[in-house]
């Protein structure tokens, strides 16, 4: 028995400071954002009383849903996120399998390598990629000097650069999700499969991957949603203008000072995310807990 049983009520209050923190700095500000998105007469510089007392309406939402540019950017962001997700699957699943099946120093090397981008600031990652992918970057210089190309490739300042950059920083999330699920599979199952004649590839295809489904699911969800909301990497590696949706939001706050519209766009992003999560979870609902 854990200490749960000793007069449980005496400890509940310990969670209060944390809950207050979350309420004050996450819940309330989000509510404020929602209110802002619904306000019609708000100007930057008004106080919160103006926000609460002003007329409310769905003007910004109507405008947003009729704005082709905004919707187009949303679509483009979804496409970029899908590409990133596919790449992290292709790279992350073999990496997780390798971590799972190896032992000792090799395993440690693989795990640290997988986790590395999480431990480094995304600015450093983006900077490193810009040095690699730039017009005068390492890749172009190498290919030029080897004579494989005559003109530098436009790898950076494009959607390709964004995809590469995001895949890099989001790969750890896929690896960790899949690895956690793999580690729950009893080894005896693999041994049984091999005594029944399955090759390694067959074992993975028919036994391992189906059982690791939960990890794949959460990995895909995590990577896709994080890619949708990414701002910094696209800002550094992307082309001119606002290639992704979060940058469109940013612009409302920094350049055009249309805060209420920006708030509405933020809410749209939140709603789209929740729909994706809900949709994905219901489509691939587990029959049994993995």
């Amino acid at each position, binding site marked *: 028995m854990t200490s749960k*049983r*000793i*007069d449980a009520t005496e400890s509940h209050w310990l969670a209060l400071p944390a809950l207050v923190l979350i309420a004050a700095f996450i819940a309330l500000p989000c509510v404020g954002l929602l209110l802002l998105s619904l306000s019609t007469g708000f100007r930057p510089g008004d106080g919160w009383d103006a926000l609460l007392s002003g007329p409310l309406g769905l003007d910004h939402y109507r405008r947003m849903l009729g704005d082709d540019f905004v919707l187009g950017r949303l679509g483009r962001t979804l496409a970029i996120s899908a590409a990133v997700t596919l790449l992290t699957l292709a790279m992350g699943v073999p990496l997780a399998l390798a971590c799972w099946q190896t032992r000792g120093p090799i395993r440690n090397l693989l795990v640290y390598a997988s986790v590395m981008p999480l431990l480094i600031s995304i600015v450093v990652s983006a900077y490193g990629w810009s040095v690699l992918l730039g017009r005068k970057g390492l890749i172009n210089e190498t290919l030029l000097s080897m004579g494989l190309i005559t003109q530098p490739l436009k790898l950076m300042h494009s959607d390709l650069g964004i995809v590469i950059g995001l895949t890099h920083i989001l790969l750890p999330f896929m690896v960790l999700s899949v690895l956690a699920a793999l580690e729950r599979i009893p080894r005896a199952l693999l041994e049984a499969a091999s005594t029944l004649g399955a090759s390694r590839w067959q074992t993975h295809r028919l036994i391992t991957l189906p059982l690791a489904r939960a990890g794949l699911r959460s990995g895909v969800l995590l990577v896709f949603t994080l890619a949708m909301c990414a701002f910094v990497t696209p800002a550094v590696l992307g082309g001119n203008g606002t290639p992704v949706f979060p940058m469109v939001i940013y612009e409302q706050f920094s350049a055009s000072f249309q805060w209420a519209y920006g708030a509405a766009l933020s809410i749209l992003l939140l709603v789209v995310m929740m729909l994706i999560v809900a949709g994905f979870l219901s489509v691939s609902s587990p029959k049994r807990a993995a």
Partner: protein
Amino acid sequence: MSSLALQIDAVVKRFGATTAVNNLSLDVTQGEFVSLLGPSGCGKTTTLRMIAGLERPSAGTIRIAGIDVSAMPPEARDIGMVFQSLALFPHMTVADNVAFGLRMRGRATDRLAERVREALDRVRLSGFEDRYPDTLSGGQQQRVALARAIVTSPAVLLLDEPFSALDRSLREALTLEFSGLLREIGATTVFVTHDQEEAFAMSDRVAVIEGGRLMQCDAPATVFGRPSCTRVARFVGMSNLLPVTKGTDGALRCELGPLSLVADARGVPPAVVGFRPDDIRLADPAPDSAGLQFSARISRCTFRGRQVQLELTPDLAPGHSLRMLAESGSPIPETGVVRNFLVAPERLHLMGE
């Protein structure tokens, strides 16, 4: 007249819809060693935890040394407890572990080291003060746990199946040692176990608990030889149980025949007669034999090493199967044969429902 160290009065414990302990009352006199014996889930550990204050009773009171502790937290009660997992503090030395209770209760601060040494001497762990628990063997850890619990001379000592993780020989050795030690210091002890032999070996009284209720609380020999009801009887291995009726002449009989010269069930109208598998003997038929005579067919015979287990189908009650244990090597008829059997009167035991 010795005072009562512990009084449990009509205690009830409910967890949601389940009642784990149902109207349990028990008094323990000072210096007594009482075991709470029963199968897993019977409520014995819950009862112990309520005495300790780790659970609060849903109803009823608990008194320790005359003080009503029902609403008191564990740290305010005068108890010592040895847990099933021992729960030694891994980050403290043996000495710090043992001294912990004294420190927390603010006692003997100037003679702390001395008290610790005394306690370790008693459990035969002298010199182990600076060792860490993870460097000790299972038996040694047990002793530290006991030393830690007794060093404060608590009014009641509580032991929650402390030996369950040990192997048989170590268990037997520690059982003897601990019960001797506790008797020596005069500790009042409540001991929870599911192991009958352990309970019988160590206790002054055994309280058999099943389904949250106290079935019987008596000296070990009484619980073993004269169980008060069928549930206790089955628990202590008296597996042959038959309903009893009283004839118009006052004579008792069961399905297999009359019962003669059988001792009364104490104060309870006899409803069932019980006897052990090893108390059935082969006998030639003789009229007016005392005890219970019956004729039965041996329907199955299983070799079990020292003993042979026989399943008997009595002629007069073919639906009732009786179990018999005989020494291997004694003359045993073949399976399928019909023979006469006898249970001596002192081996027959009458009880209530």
